[in-house]
């Protein structure tokens, strides 16, 4: 039976998904404009509409009540806590940067541009829904909204052979892993008889005491990991990553490397901590008894970062190299997840914010060089420092930050991650991560060396338009600024958990 105040409470709850509704309206508006006007012209119009939609989507956030960990709405489908509150602007920024990068590099044809903006907005909406969900059904729907549309986004240059092949690999891997995760969901639903995470967590805590139910939990956790490790591009589900990142248009690659990856890590926090860890109010969590998933994840983390860094050494295509670097960074980020403490969670969120600017920055430079007459191969970067000093200095800063050198933002982020594992006394993982940082020094510096210390092999003048320079500046400021003055971000993040 429908309760008396059902519609009333639903209408109130709708105001909490204001950002998603505004994004939906923006998507419909762009669709309509694409029908009414000749869609292969007016590129700038679609950009303005999309950026306005993303900017408008964060406006209603400040009119909503103070976030609280137990404030749920729309029949417990969503939670309104600080993680939700701060993730939505984060994903909006990811979307805006992607659309601006697509606009300035012109890598996607005008005939596909309106669809590209629609898809970026829709994936952003999926990610926003995902971070707020506390229900297995909603998590699955948002996860697939994000996933299915990003398959299309990878294959948006349908005429390009590499783009199509990348999309093909992405869709097959993605559908396979999300199907596996769904089977894990169905097992947990069978255990609890409910899709509400809170109800399931109570059942899980109860079931973990009984050996006969433990097997089911272990299987469920392993199936969950398939979906999450795929999205975050971690071992053993990382094989798609280099191919997809290389084949996709560069702005889309940048989008995938920060958007869905961040959503995957937030889902780790949303799914694994309430379900498979106890002590939610304390600063230290404990894995549910009998299931040592943190140890498995620690191993995965170590293998992921080592594999990513070792494979990156041999790469000559910059997008492929950055793809392997992104795998390695997934390994670093997993360190925060395995440390099972608030410190670890904070460091993950902090690093994701920092990673957004430096990684999009590195991909932005790759896209700009490629669109200004160069290529994605490392050969076209030889001696580039003399021909395009501004872009190359920016690239060097992004790469130094990715290595984790002071005084750049990546250094602070890595310090937090290392602190989290050392605090938890997982020393071997910290040592592995430190060794990996040294390995990564080699291939990042190889690019810097090519840019500044080697003789140019070609003498094409590289012209970077003003709009690209402004966008690069917008990415440089946080990369440098957060490296020197990171306390405000650290304070915001520490309020979350």
């Amino acid at each position, binding site marked *: 039976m429908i309760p008396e105040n059902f519609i009333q409470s639903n209408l109130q709850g709708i105001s909490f998904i204001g950002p998603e509704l505004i994004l939906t309206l923006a998507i419909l508006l762009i669709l309509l404009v694409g029908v009414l006007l000749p869609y292969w012209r007016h590129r700038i119009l679609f950009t303005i509409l999309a950026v306005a939609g993303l900017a408008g989507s964060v406006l209603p956030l400040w009119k909503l009540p103070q976030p609280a960990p137990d404030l749920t709405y729309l029949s417990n489908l969503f939670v309104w806590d600080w993680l939700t509150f701060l993730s939505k602007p984060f994903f909006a920024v990811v979307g805006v940067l992607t659309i601006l990068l697509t606009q300035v590099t012109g890598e996607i044809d005008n005939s596909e541009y309106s669809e590209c903006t629609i898809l970026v907005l829709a994936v952003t909406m999926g990610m926003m829904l995902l971070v707020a969900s506390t229900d297995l059904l909603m998590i699955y*729907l948002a996860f697939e909204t994000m996933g299915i549309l990003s398959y299309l986004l990878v294959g948006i240059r349908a005429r390009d052979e590499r783009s199509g*092949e990348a*999309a093909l690999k992405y869709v097959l891997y993605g559908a396979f892993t999300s199907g596996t995760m769904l089977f894990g969901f169905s097992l947990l639903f069978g255990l609890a008889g409910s899709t509400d995470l809170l109800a399931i967590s109570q059942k899980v805590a109860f079931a973990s005491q009984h050996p006969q139910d433990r097997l089911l939990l272990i299987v469920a956790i392993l199936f969950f990991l398939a979906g999450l490790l795929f999205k975050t591009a971690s071992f053993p589900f990382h094989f798609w990553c280099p191919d997809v990142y290389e084949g996709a248009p560069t702005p889309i690659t940048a989008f995938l490397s920060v958007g869905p990856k961040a959503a995957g890590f937030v889902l780790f926090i949303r799914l694994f901590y309430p379900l498979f860890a106890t002590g939610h109010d304390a600063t230290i969590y404990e894995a549910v008894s009998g299931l040592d998933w943190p140890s498995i994840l620690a191993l995965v983390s170590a293998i992921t970062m080592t594999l990513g860094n070792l494979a990156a050494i041999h790469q000559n295509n910059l997008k492929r190299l950055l793809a392997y670097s992104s795998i390695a960074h997934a390994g670093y980020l997993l360190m925060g997840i395995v440390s099972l403490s608030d410190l670890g969670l904070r460091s993950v969120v902090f690093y994701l914010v920092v990673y957004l600017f430096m990684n999009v920055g590195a991909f932005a430079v790759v896209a700009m060089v490629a669109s200004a007459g160069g290529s994605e191969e490392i050969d076209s970067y030889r001696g580039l420092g003399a021909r395009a000093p501004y872009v190359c200095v920016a690239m060097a800063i992004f790469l130094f930050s990715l290595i984790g050198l002071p005084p750049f933002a990546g250094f602070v982020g890595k310090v937090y991650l290392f602190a989290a594992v050392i605090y938890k006394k997982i020393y071997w993982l910290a040592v592995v991560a430190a060794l990996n940082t040294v390995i990564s020094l080699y291939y990042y510096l190889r690019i810097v060396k090519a840019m500044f210390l080697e003789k140019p092999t070609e003498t094409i003048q590289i012209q970077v338009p003003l709009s690209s320079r402004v966008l690069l500046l917008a990415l440089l400021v946080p990369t440098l600024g957060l490296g020197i003055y990171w306390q405000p971000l650290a304070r915001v993040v520490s309020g979350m958990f």
Partner: protein
Amino acid sequence: MNSLYTYLFLAALLFSLGIFGVFQRRSLIGMLIAIELMLNGASINFMAFNRFLAPDPIVGQIYTLFIMGIAAAEAAIALSIIVAVFRRLRSINIERAQELRG
């Protein structure tokens, strides 16, 4: 016969067949069908658990309906990507998609 375990066994069988199919098939359409089998296995799990363990909230049935929707969307998009790739390669054999490697 009409017990929970019959259905769970059927679901697990469908799911494993799906996984086997994904690894064994070389045709893109075949792989897509195998993935649909995996989703159907999960659907049967949801329906069976809903029927035998938690009959009151119909959330399991709703979940199955949404899985159908998602599976259709996934199939539609995978098919459109396969069609786009087919136009280029003139083949639906996965082994021919080997432009990207290294």
